[in-house]
């Protein structure tokens, strides 16, 4: 089922996420981050850990939206941007929100501009993200 371009503007909200140390520990090891001296704890989360607490839950909603008909297995990640309004800390709680900001079909490929933000309980966005997803659509 081809993506319906009229669905541009669709929004998603994921349950509140915690910027937590256990997941960060796995993430930091996977990306080869310097663990620091033995027995010490990293003071702040790595910037691209936002891929885990912000982007991942929203991408699951996006590609799980049957009305969109997107297939995660045919996704190519084109571009990524994260903007941080303040330094995040472990224990921070954010509510991920996402929106299909634009979509364009070119040469059999669908280009999706997906914007995300992680809002604090006061409503301010502490982190924002922009992803360009390129999806090979099924015939």
């Amino acid at each position: 089922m081809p993506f319906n371009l009229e669905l541009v503007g669709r929004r998603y909200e994921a349950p509140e996420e915690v910027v937590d140390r256990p997941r960060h520990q796995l993430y930091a090891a996977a990306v080869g981050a310097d663990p620091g001296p033995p027995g010490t704890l990293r003071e702040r989360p790595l910037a691209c850990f936002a891929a885990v607490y912000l982007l991942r839950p929203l991408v699951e909603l996006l590609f799980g939206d049957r009305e969109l008909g997107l297939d995660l297995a045919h996704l190519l990640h084109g571009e990524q941007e994260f903007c941080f309004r303040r330094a995040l800390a472990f224990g921070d709680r954010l509510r991920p929100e996402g929106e299909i900001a634009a979509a364009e079909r070119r040469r059999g490929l669908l280009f999706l501009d997906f914007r995300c933000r992680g809002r604090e309980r006061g409503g301010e966005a502490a982190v924002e993200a922009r992803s360009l997803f390129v999806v090979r659509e099924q015939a």
Partner: protein
Amino acid sequence: MSRGGLPGPGPLAELRLRLSQERIAAYADASGDHNPIHLDPEFARRAGLPSTIAHGLLTLGVVCALAEGALPDGVRVARVACRFSAPVASGEELCCRAEVTESEEELARVRLSAATAAGQAALSRGAMELRPL
């Protein structure tokens, strides 16, 4: 070092790292992204690839972690951005670099790059912006 405590222009960090299938699997577990194009060689071949490929966000995460590990205290990352310009096959070695290109009192810009041993850029327009904490 600039007046705001931000690093001054010049090389920040460099690293060669092999993106082994074990590392790709570890990233899939850590990130929750189990797209079979990263994990299943047969699926990857059916998708027209010679092998499984690394997550783009793994490549970006490696370069960013490299840069962040070289930052002085009192500095925060304000922005990270890149274009994923070519897939990185499982087992390929990446040469990752971070270089401060501009530094002022309140803002420093870092160029991020990652290329395969054959010189193919995996990231383009890699950028990080730093601000005082």
